[in-house]
């Protein structure tokens, strides 16, 4: 990006000191092209400010990533000048977001999370596969006879190896979508977490009295496993214990994943 464009961007987003801002504005006088660019950038900023915030109780990996990004950016003070080299890319990306989002803005406020990022089902498939494809295989080594190998139900997940042919429903892939399809956001719903005042012997009349003395009772916050965590890393492992047992031994299959792939409830 040329220095002139960079100054215009900083001016439009209020990043320049008063003296510098006046100087840049003075330079645009008589320069129709620069004034048009400045106006477009100001409109872009105003458009961004009109974006509705996401609902506060929405499970959102996107917001998590944004928070991480925001924090990391904050820690890098002062921002080096070369960081603005990315500004044109950012502007283009933001402009694209605005254009894409505009139809949604005319309707009801929409969830900004990419619905395909999150998956939460019930039962055995309650945990969507991590970002890497799981290789379901027995604990026994490859030297073992296949017929015996399949008798072991433990599962090893290898993050670094190529995906094996899917033996169970594969995780939904990320896809671009303008309108958010709420039906694809399969997060725990209210029935999993209903606050109920404690009652004494089921007597509603005593609920308030008891509630004043006793702590609230709520359904235990559950945990989720997401398709791909907000970041990759972290030495701690999370062991997902299957709900199904081996009929002979009672053993449960288990898989390991990274802590960053799990949203823990508590």
């Amino acid at each position, binding site marked *: 990006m040329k220095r002139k464009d960079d100054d215009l961007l900083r001016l439009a987003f209020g990043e320049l000191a008063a003296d510098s801002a006046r100087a840049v504005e003075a330079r645009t006088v008589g320069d129709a092209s620069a004034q048009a660019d400045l106006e477009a950038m100001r409109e872009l900023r105003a458009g961004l400010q009109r974006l509705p915030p996401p609902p*506060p*109780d929405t*499970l*959102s990996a996107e*917001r*998590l990533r*944004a*928070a*991480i990004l925001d*924090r990391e950016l904050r820690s890098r003070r002062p921002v080096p000048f070369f960081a603005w080299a990315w500004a044109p890319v950012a502007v283009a990306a933001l402009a694209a977001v605005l254009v894409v989002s505009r139809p949604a803005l005319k309707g009801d406020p929409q969830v900004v999370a990419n619905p395909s990022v999150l998956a939460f089902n019930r039962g055995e498939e*309650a*945990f969507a596969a991590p970002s890497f494809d799981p290789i379901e295989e*027995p*604990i*026994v*080594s490859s030297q*073992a006879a296949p*017929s*015996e190998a399949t*008798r*072991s139900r*433990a599962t*090893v997940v290898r993050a670094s190896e190529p995906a094996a042919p899917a033996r169970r429903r594969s995780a939904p892939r990320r896809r671009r979508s303008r309108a958010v399809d709420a039906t694809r956001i399969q997060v725990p719903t*209210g029935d999993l*977490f209903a*606050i109920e005042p404690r009652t004494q012997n089921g007597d509603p009349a005593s609920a308030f009295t008891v509630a004043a003395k*006793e*702590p*609230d*009772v*709520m*359904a*235990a*916050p559950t*945990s989720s*496993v997401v398709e791909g965590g*907000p970041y990759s*890393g*972290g030495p*701690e*492992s*999370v*062991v*997902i*214990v*299957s*709900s199904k047992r*081996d009929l*002979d*031994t009672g*053993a*449960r*299959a288990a898989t390991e994943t990274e*802590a*960053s792939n*799990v*949203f*823990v*409830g*508590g």
Partner: protein
Amino acid sequence: MSLWVVESLAQAQTVAVQTLLDRLRPSVAVLGSAQRPTGSATLLDADRGLFLAHADAIQGDTVQARIGSLGRFRLKVVARDERTNLVLLGPGDDLPRLTGPTINVADASPVPNTPIVVLLADGGIGGSFVGGQSLLVQSESRRAVPASELRFETPLQLVAGALVLTLDGRLVGTMGATIARAGNVAPVTPGALADVRSMVQGQSRGALGSPFLRKGASYGPQGMTVAYTPNLTAIQRTIAGFLSRDHQPEYAGLGLQVAESPIGLVVVRVFPESPASRIKIQVGDTLLSMDGRSVQRQYDFLQVLLVARPGDHMTIRLRHEGTEITREAVLAKTKR
């Protein structure tokens, strides 16, 4: 009660394990039928006839049990804990007089490499306590609990649902799942696999000789099996609940979900009407500390909640939109 010796278990430790098993004999009930034992239960309260077992050792609401010379009797499920998968068993109609010592729960988590014994059906096997700070997530109940790692030089991947003791007989874990790590798995022949299965079912005693595992030369140190147990705090909490008047463990909750990230624990969901929502914790906030304890990871988060009790006032420090703030929450009691 027999002892299956692992190849590398030191002789002194082998003797200690056998001594422990002999001492526990009057206190450990073998669950399941004679033809098909499924696991063990340890005596928790002799006066009330309460036993502790892992859920995977029990199918249904009642189970047959046997203690050495006391013969067979029935136990019934009194309570289950979905976090630890521990089950409280109570007396049926035919409970004999129990004379064995009750199980002791360890006060503190063992140091790494502490020798341990896993109580299987009618026997035990040696291993080591590794420790660490992992998480166990039960896919059925979607409950998460802090976990510690165990290791065995045996192909125990077919086994889950066992109680874990130190050599001095203190309960330190309950094996919830076993995983053999990739690249660390020894060959197991089909025959050996079948033998292990028989051993787990309690059918190997005598038939395969003793020590059984020494016969299975196809696995050893190269075939390290990794297992996980809910950590000691979770087990202590569960057992305390089991021994309470209503036999129900109580857990405290804030009502939110958190994710680990490079900047710490980020709130990704706040449940409506929860303690967290009442003090205006929002998605995107970063938890810094709870009751003065730094919470950098999900393990820390769960551990702090495990120690807390419903109704407790908890001071929470968090970062909200770049600003550090402090709030106080009243923890709720979680129910199933």
